């Protein structure tokens, strides 16, 4: 007994006891499911693991011919390509205006961060009422200025943009806060000498600030990009993919197939499309980073 104790009391042995719980948890609930996701995609089964069993590439063959899947892919890409630049530009501009740690700036920053601490459900309830097709205040205000019949949440041509707006509205505070902390680390001397050269503030922002925070900028770009490709909460709570599938994102479609239709194998195959896209983007991103470092 004492021997066992003495063995584990050595720091280099004790360390294994310290890291083991987390390593095991991550192995069982992250790494194994990752491998299993690929395996599942070759099976036909429901949540009770009942079904035709191994079907090879059948799920993928079905997926490639699945119009609803391609639609959800396009919706997701459209969402990401508009949401991420919008969020980044808003975040950059606001961070540029609020870099200094004055009381006023801190207050604005605190306010901008507010929506992200609220749940997507609460945010969705509010916007659904605000944009209601009959008794929504926004709809009413538009009617007052002569724009009639706008149906924000049930119009195939605009609802996706409403979801994009809600997403930017909810989380631009995150980018703002991250950019502010990066901009505060830019050496003040750079601005001082630019001032002496008669370089205007706006020009300073583009020639000093942006290049100096390039690393943070690319970090935010890649994390927001990957995050946007996984959009689910706002779609689930606001439109459920409608109208006419125009807001059905890839993850929402995966959810519908795997959990509502109870087709776990097919759902896995669909989620592999998301994985492939994220993998390609991540590799391209790090390859570029690596090249630049060289």
């Amino acid at each position, binding site marked *: 007994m004492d021997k066992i104790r003495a063995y584990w009391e050595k720091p*280099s042995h*004790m*360390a294994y006891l*310290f*890291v083991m*719980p*987390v*390593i095991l*948890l*991550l192995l*069982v*609930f*992250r*790494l*194994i499911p*990752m491998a*299993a*996701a690929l395996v*599942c995609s070759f099976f036909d089964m429901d*949540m009770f693991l009942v079904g035709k069993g191994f079907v090879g590439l059948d799920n993928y063959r079905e997926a490639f011919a699945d119009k609803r899947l391609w639609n959800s892919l396009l919706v997701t890409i459209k969402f990401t390509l508009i949401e991420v630049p919008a969020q980044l530009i808003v975040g950059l501009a*606001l961070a540029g*205006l609020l870099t200094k740690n004055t009381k*006023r700036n801190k207050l*604005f*920053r605190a306010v*901008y*961060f*507010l*929506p*992200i*601490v*609220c*749940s*997507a*459900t*609460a945010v969705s*309830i*509010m916007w659904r*009422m*605000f944009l*209601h097709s009959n008794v*929504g*205040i926004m709809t009413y205000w538009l009617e007052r200025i002569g724009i009639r019949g706008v149906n924000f949440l049930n119009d195939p041509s605009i609802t996706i943009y409403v979801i994009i707006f809600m997403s930017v*509205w909810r989380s631009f*505070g995150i980018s703002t*806060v*991250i950019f502010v902390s990066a901009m505060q680390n830019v050496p003040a001397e750079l601005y001082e000498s630019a001032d002496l050269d008669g370089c205007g503030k706006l020009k300073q922002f583009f020639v000093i600030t942006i290049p100096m925070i390039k690393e943070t900028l690319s970090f935010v770009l890649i994390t927001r990009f990957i*995050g946007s490709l*996984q959009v*689910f909460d706002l779609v*689930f*709570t606001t439109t*459920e993919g409608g109208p006419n599938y125009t807001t059905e994102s890839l993850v929402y479609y*995966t*959810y519908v197939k795997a959990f509502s239709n109870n087709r*776990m194998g097919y759902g*896995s195959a669909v*989620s592999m499309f*998301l*994985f492939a896209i994220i993998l390609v983007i991540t590799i391209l991103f790090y390859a570029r980073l690596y090249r630049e470092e060289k």
Partner: protein
Amino acid sequence: MRKIKSGSVYFLITLLLIVIALLVLVPTVWIGICAFRPQTELMQYPPKFFADQLTLRNFQDITKRIRIWGYVKNSVIYCLALNLPSVFLNSLAGYAFARLQFKGKNVLFILCLATMMIPFQVIMVPLFLEVYKLGMYDNFAGLIIPNLGAAMTVFMTRASFAGIPKELEEAARLDGLSEFGIFWRIMVPLVKPTVVTVLVLGINGSWNDLMWPLLVTSDTSMRTLTNGLAMFIDSSLQYGTAFAGAFISIVPMLVLYLFGQRYFVEGVATSGLKG
């Protein structure tokens, strides 16, 4: 001349900042206003922004229609029973990676980091099947255990532990403290800001978590607030009651944000929250 110009620029910028602040504040405050308005007033035409009369009716209604306090209880359990042990276990690992020497350290750390690259939505199906097969469907074990390991927390605490001077550790070792004693009594108090940051962000994340509770629970007695409320608005057009629920769901987080704002901001600036 130049002074006047910069003065008016400052004014215009402040105006812009105020407009954006209102764009955020007004809808958020409006949730509070609508929670106390009669349902009929919400559905009247023309709609009004401010309330004519205030009532507690919505709150009475929601307790009748769904088990809202049960949902709140589940959310509180989910937040605490997940995040307290999670922070403990992950910072224990973070400490070992930062300050102890052992064979295979780098390999294990890279393994840990690799899990940060795995998008949750890609593994949700197999993870669900695993939880189901392990008998953790529709109970707290399934809600909590799969999310205990968090590589981001390991990563963040490791960075903080690495910054502590070596003398402290050596002094403690000479005093005869065990390795765990050094971690718990000496090291953890020194990285308290990081621990609180991780805890605050974790609690906020679990409280607002929609997807995982949606997947692994189905019985209404197991629903969390965010999830149960989403199900409720799905099946009803009772906006008044929905607003009461939304109000109950955001107030605890607003209070947390009010007192822990510093931690939110620091945590997001270093880790880059999803959302």
